[in-house]
């Protein structure tokens, strides 16, 4: 399970998990599968964590992308 998730690609600009070949939010194809730390934002308007991380959209994010 963990091995499958490690292959998931993350946008290097916004740190968001991406399904296809490019990020739907920033439009960049600058993706990486070398990431660490996992963050899920459900309610970005109320969440202190989302405010701290400057995240305005719900979704799955990586904390660190190389």
């Amino acid at each position: 399970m963990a091995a499958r998730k490690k292959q998931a690609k993350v946008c290097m600009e916004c740190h968001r998990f991406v399904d296809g070949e490019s990020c739907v939010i920033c439009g960049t194809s600058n993706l990486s599968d070398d990431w660490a730390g996992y963050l899920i934002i459900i309610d970005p308007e109320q969440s202190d964590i989302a405010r701290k991380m400057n995240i305005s959209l719900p979704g799955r994010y990586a904390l660190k992308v190389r």
Partner: protein
Amino acid sequence: MTEYIHKIFAVKTTAKQERTVADNILRVCEGLADVHVLAIIAPDELRGYVLVETPDNLARMEQLVEHVPHARTVLHGETTLHEVEHFLVPKPAVSGIEEGTIIELISGPFKGEKAIVKRVDLGKEEITVELYESMVPIPITVRGDSVRVIERSDESN
């Protein structure tokens, strides 16, 4: 200093299932109308736990955990973002390593070999080392997270 209003609970998980639990909490929350979860953190540094941000109380979290596969219990203490915000900004893998540090390689073809650090690249999080027992000094560049520090250089004292 920013005031954080919501509570953060630590949910104990089965070993190595932290990300699965985070995904499962997300899925379960969509089905439970009276449990409100705002965000979930699963830092790599924190093995066996995920952190859940919520405006709800402990009883609600215990109710949530019952529905989440691989989640075991909720720790009874609650905290705020002040105490866990350092997880949001991970330290570079090469922090604490500087020139002259003696390290052991923990992965790759030179696994188990001891080496001395010759150069540290903070941007790429890579270090260049020379193997300790090698006859000729051959520089090898490895990732910062594939080494373990054995002895720090004296200059840092």
